[in-house]
């Protein structure tokens, strides 16, 4: 019951911090627009004056898709680079933003404005960068070690398979294990960040080590709470698809579809804050 109460508190906190959702969405949107712009100009050069552009409105058709792929095949390595490098910058940007997100969640009574948000962002950037670097080691251990071990076990099962069933089940289970392992690592370092903010500390290694005991003592409760918010994220995904898929992509509905897509992106930002809000309240509840 305490977990549900914590969840409720986190939910309320998140809804009081909607301004941050707008910040995050704007940052994501602008960053994405910057990436898409060159691609837009590339296709704008050829497509708008071709009748093919009318066919695009009717849906995905391999005739025009094939044309685009064929036309820009030489640009593929450059495009991959173009998508990869900004992603790395975006990751760094998020390390920066986490300070603002958690800092403003922790400043319960204060109003949110851009100055206070950015001030928290800069205050925690370097400690959070260290947390990120430590988390990379953890990812390496979990995915390089534990997951490889689990994979090897699944491979043994697959090797002796007489039908496709073990292959199907093992690939689903393996994926599930991967997701759960990821959620554990992710949750663990969320709490490290929350601890740093609550304790107004910059000692990332110390916070990580203390967090081992903290999470160790109440692992299942913390994980349950984390998965609960994860479930909400998944539900939003399902709702998005259920509405977007049957929506005709023509005329004004094209714009409606675009707005719906942006609402889904906003929902992702909202759940991101919900993760931290619930974790913050859980941490405060069990603080030693």
């Amino acid at each position, binding site marked *: 019951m305490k977990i549900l109460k914590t969840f409720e508190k986190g939910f309320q906190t998140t809804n009081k911090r909607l301004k941050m959702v707008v910040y995050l969405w704007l940052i994501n949107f602008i960053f994405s627009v910057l990436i898409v712009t060159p691609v837009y100009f590339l296709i704008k050069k050829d*497509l708008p004056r071709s009748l*093919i552009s009318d066919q695009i409105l009717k849906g995905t058709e391999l005739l025009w898709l094939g044309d685009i792929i064929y036309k820009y095949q030489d640009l593929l390595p450059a495009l991959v680079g173009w998508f990869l490098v900004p992603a790395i910058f975006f990751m760094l940007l998020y390390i920066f933003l986490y300070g603002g997100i958690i800092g403003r969640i922790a400043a319960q009574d204060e109003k949110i404005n851009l100055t206070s948000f950015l001030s928290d962002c800069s205050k925690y950037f370097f400690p959070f960068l260290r947390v990120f670097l430590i988390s990379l080691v953890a990812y390496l251990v979990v995915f390089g070690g534990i997951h490889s071990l689990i994979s090897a076990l699944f491979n043994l099962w697959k090797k002796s398979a007489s039908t496709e069933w073990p292959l199907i089940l093992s690939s689903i289970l393996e994926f599930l294990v991967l997701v759960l392992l990821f959620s554990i690592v992710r949750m663990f370092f969320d709490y490290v960040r929350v601890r740093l903010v609550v304790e107004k500390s910059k000692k990332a290694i110390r916070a990580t080590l203390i967090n081992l005991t903290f999470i160790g003592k109440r692992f299942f409760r913390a994980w349950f709470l984390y998965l609960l918010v994860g479930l909400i994220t998944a539900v939003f995904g399902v709702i998005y698809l259920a509405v977007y898929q049957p929506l005709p992509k023509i005329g004004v509905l094209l714009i409606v579809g675009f707005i719906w897509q942006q609402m889904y992106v906003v929902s992702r930002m909202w759940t991101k804050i919900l993760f931290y809000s619930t974790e913050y309240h859980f941490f405060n509840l069990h603080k030693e």
Partner: protein
Amino acid sequence: MKKKKPYLKFLFFMLTLSFIGPAALLGEKRISNVRYEIWVELDDQNQMLHGKENITWLNNTRDDVQDMWFHLYYNAFKNEQSTTIQESKEEWFGAFGIKIKEGRWGCVDVTSIKLADGTDLKPTMEFITQDKPVHPGDQTVMRVLFPEPVKPGEEAHLQLEFESKIPRSIHRSSYYQNSYFIAQWFPKPGVYEEGKGWNCHEYHLNSEFYADFAEFTVHITVPEDFVVGASGKQIKAVPDMEKKTVTYTFYQDNIHDFAWTADPDFIKVERDFIADEEVSLEEYEEVARMLQLPVEEVKLPDVKMILLIEPEHKSQIDRHFKALRMAIKYYGLWYGPYPYETVTMVDPPFRTRSGGMEYPTLFTAGTGILRSKKVLSPEGVIIHEFGHGYWYGLCANNEFEEAWLDEGINTYSEGKVTAIAYGPGAMPISFQRIPLSWFCKLPEYYNYELERATAIHVVELDPITTISWKFYNRGSYGLNVYARASTCLYTLEGLVGEEMMLRILRTFQMRFRYKHPQTQDFIDVVNEVTGKDLSWFFEELFFSTLNFDYGISSVASKEKKKYVRGVFDVDGRREEITSKSIKKMEKEDKKSDDKKFYVTEVKVRRFGEARVRGDTTMKLKVVFEDGSEEVIDWRGQERWKKFTFEKPAKAEYAQIDPDNIWLVDSNLTNNSLKRKPSRKGIFKVTTQLLFLIQNYLQCAASIT
């Protein structure tokens, strides 16, 4: 070798005359010039085949034949010196090639080879490697010398014994646990070509097979609990209680290969294709009209359909049969009736890597446990592999040298049958083996769209007619002989019309049934049936690497000026027209009801090297804002040409090839050009991409 005695020849002649009548003797050769009787026993403990083989080979050429060449395909998996494995290593540095783990090699040993009179030919036995580049360690072609030549019309009778180690989970023919798919397993003579000698290539990575039509009687002995399927018709099953085995005998004439499968888990289901229930009289009449044949000639026979399916795919039995029924129906109606009594469809045993392969009267399909009905799999593979019964099975081209003749024509045919039977299918995208089309609507497409989208990438690599193992790489082989050849055939269909195309393929099929046609035979049929010389079409698109790309480079409309400035001689005196006077005159004109006229200039270009020839032209359509159209034909020889139109409206757009005949065109985007751009399509693509990037960035951020 046993020579026929003259009186026996006479007796045989009289007997034949009395049974089949003189007509057959006047112009027709016997279809099968080889007769096999094979006894093979499956050793399930050691994954071995123990075989005896009697071969009767008739020399139906005018040559004296000194030797005989055999395919020993299993030796492709004997060691890393085989041509197949060597070629596989050359392909992407072996990354995607055949990798055989230790203890999984396969091979065939001919332990004895004699003539029927007891003459031992084994001392003359040698392995031949003649294909370039040479792989000297290859042992997939064997030659023996006859003590004296086989004269024209004579038969050679050979008796062989062989032992084969079945390879594990490798390529087409293999075993996994106690499931077997056995193909290319027995020593098989090549094809003797008059004046040229034996056509008997090594087993190449990128090629399939070639053999003479033959009569097969095969006795297969397997442990009693095995379910067996094979080429031809099962005529006997004799159990041996003591050995706990069963010997199945299969017989089929007029086929050129024999494959079989054995698996204790197979579920065997038999159903009948009853022509009268499958095809209505209206359908017969329609097809007869299109083919310009009497209805009686397009009528189909009944066929026994046999399915051997793995228990985990049991729920897909109806799906398999429906696809097969559709294939028998449409291949039969369009290209000619299926001439055999049975067709066996095998759901390939797990991990035998034998799926999607054709053998006469038997083929392997391929499915998975989780399949969406929107994705046409296994349907596509069933239709394709059954179709090979026509293109390869009956029109038995040399797949080593001209693979497009069966793969290309059959890919085209498969697309036509799939389209009429099912419509478009959803993209086969899965996540963790779960079909995504269960959860969301995936784009749907017709086969020809995918084929064209992939084919355009390999146009400049190799001609379609390249010898199988001489393509730039496996991708070029696959895309050229399947996708590009099919795309070119769709283009040919666009050019000559759908009904004419049906008549071409029907004529080709029926004329070359039980024969070995070549590319030139196909071209001859095209020219004959259409009554046009379309050889250029093949020169440009099949024998060359020329890119086909016509397009519009500019379209512009401007008002036609009635008045121009300058000094003019009018009625013997000089008069100057100035801008001011023009304006005045135009003002006057506006008062009258004179229509404005516009001059539209359209420039068309031949971007690619390939060009249309003969009396074929490229059609140019210009649509104007008042809804009117102008359609003109361009010979298409020049690199570019300007067309001018004078109309009371501005152009809306210009389009070359408005009927989409030239599917082979590598850039359909430039086939049309609007005078004014429209951004709706771009908005859609860009917003979709934006949304993808937004989510991609969020995922990247999740790692931090």
